[in-house]
């Protein structure tokens, strides 16, 4: 696959020791790509950890240091924010379960290093949603969606409340009652996730998902969401989670079992496939074979190739230097696909299928020319 120069960014992230050998013009491109993909701080964190920080020329280093400074400040604000949310929820008795970035930072996982976290995401039981919402509003959070249609859309079709913003602090809080919308084809059970949640080291009143659930949530989030600008970052989150959590004995077996339980085998399959292809994440062959055997995962080879083409182009950062002519189309089709998976299939328009056909034909032609 000859998509331009993603290797520079991915290599820099995966082999931070190699940063010492980059030329200034490589640094120029690297900083711009990393900034676009919201990975500048992560790049810096990796360099510091690998001991290559001092070898970076002063000019690009300033940009990495600035991004790290921003990320560090965000983490401080995040800790305060989590404390404030916990206090607000205390009267309801609903435990505070953090998701995604906030969870990684709270737990001190490697996935948190240099990660920019702007919103806090939490998971609560659907039955207690009203209680939670009202406790949060008492403590100063207000809904950001003012118009009635958006409110209705969120509450009917989505798995989360419209985002809440704190009146004084301006921070944003997303309250989820499921990790996928009620209308999606896959329906992972929130109750199972909540029951397996565990307290983090820092504060025993704050919970995060069990390790396998964190991975599955990350996979589901990446491969079902409509927006793909942070696709590469999402892959790297998964990569960091899998490398760290995958060390635990029994993790991979439990991962397959849990994927089946939560009906998330297909997103997990995509997650393992694309993290491996794009960023070299290791995983046991046995895991992938087990997934492929599942009826939920099997698909016609042509469809798999189309999806591969779409994802490989869609998961790149949007910077001009990492795209090719197909990418805007691929990106918009994936956006639609994301929505297709959210809404029942009957709502999908016919012309989209025709567009899929065009991408497949294009693929065949390019392969023929390189043969």
């Amino acid at each position, binding site marked *: 696959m000859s998509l331009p120069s993603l290797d520079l960014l991915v290599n820099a992230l995966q082999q931070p020791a190699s940063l010492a050998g980059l030329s200034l013009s490589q640094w120029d491109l690297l900083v711009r790509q990393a900034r676009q993909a919201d990975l500048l701080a992560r790049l810096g964190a990796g360099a510091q950890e690998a001991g290559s920080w001092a070898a970076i020329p002063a000019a690009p280093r300033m940009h990495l240091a600035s991004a790290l400074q921003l990320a560090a400040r965000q983490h*401080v*604000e995040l800790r*305060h924010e989590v404390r404030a949310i916990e206090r607000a929820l205390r009267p309801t008795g609903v435990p505070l379960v953090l998701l995604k970035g906030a969870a990684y930072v709270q737990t001190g996982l490697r996935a948190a290093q240099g990660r920019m976290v702007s919103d806090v995401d939490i998971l609560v039981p659907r039955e207690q949603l009203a209680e939670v919402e009202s406790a949060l509003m008492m403590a100063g959070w207000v809904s950001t969606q003012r118009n009635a249609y958006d409110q209705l859309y969120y509450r009917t079709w989505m798995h989360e409340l419209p985002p809440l913003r704190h009146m*004084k*602090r301006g921070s944003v809080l997303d309250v989820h009652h499921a990790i996928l919308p009620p209308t999606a084809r896959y329906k992972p059970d929130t109750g199972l996730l909540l029951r397996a949640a565990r307290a983090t080291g820092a504060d025993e009143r704050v919970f995060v998902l069990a390790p396998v659930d964190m991975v599955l949530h990350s996979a589901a989030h990446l491969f079902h969401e409509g927006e793909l600008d942070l696709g590469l970052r999402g892959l790297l989150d998964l990569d960091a989670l899998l490398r760290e959590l995958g060390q635990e004995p029994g993790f991979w077996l439990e991962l397959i079992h849990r994927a089946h339980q939560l009906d998330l085998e297909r997103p997990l399959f995509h997650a393992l496939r694309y993290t491996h292809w794009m960023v070299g994440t290791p995983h046991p062959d046995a895991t992938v074979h087990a997934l492929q055997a599942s009826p939920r995962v099997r698909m016609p080879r042509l469809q798999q190739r189309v999806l591969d083409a779409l994802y490989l182009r869609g998961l790149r950062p949007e910077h001009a230097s990492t795209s090719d002519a197909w990418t805007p189309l691929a990106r918009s089709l994936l956006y639609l696909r994301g929505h297709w998976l959210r809404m029942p299939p009957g709502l999908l328009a016919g012309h989209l299928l025709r567009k899929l056909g065009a991408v497949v034909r294009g693929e065949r032609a390019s392969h023929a020319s390189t043969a």
Partner: protein
Amino acid sequence: MGAAPVLAHLDRSADFVVKVWADGAVVYDEADGSLQALNPVAGEAFQRLLEQPGLSPTALGRLLLQEEPDAEDLRLVADLLREFESLGLWERAPA
């Protein structure tokens, strides 16, 4: 009237930095990055409260005045603490 109330504060004392000059003081709150200007006495009072958790109003008055506080002084100290509360710098622990 019962025993003088003992002050207890939120576990937020680590969030604050105080700078005191002869003609004024500033408190920085790391949680939201805000700065609050205070008069020098208030600044010093806040500094003491951060250094010594659980300080009683009488003990605080004594530290500020370098002598035993009278009733008027204690009223002023109480006002000061109410000010701190309303500024969000302090919180009384539940009884």
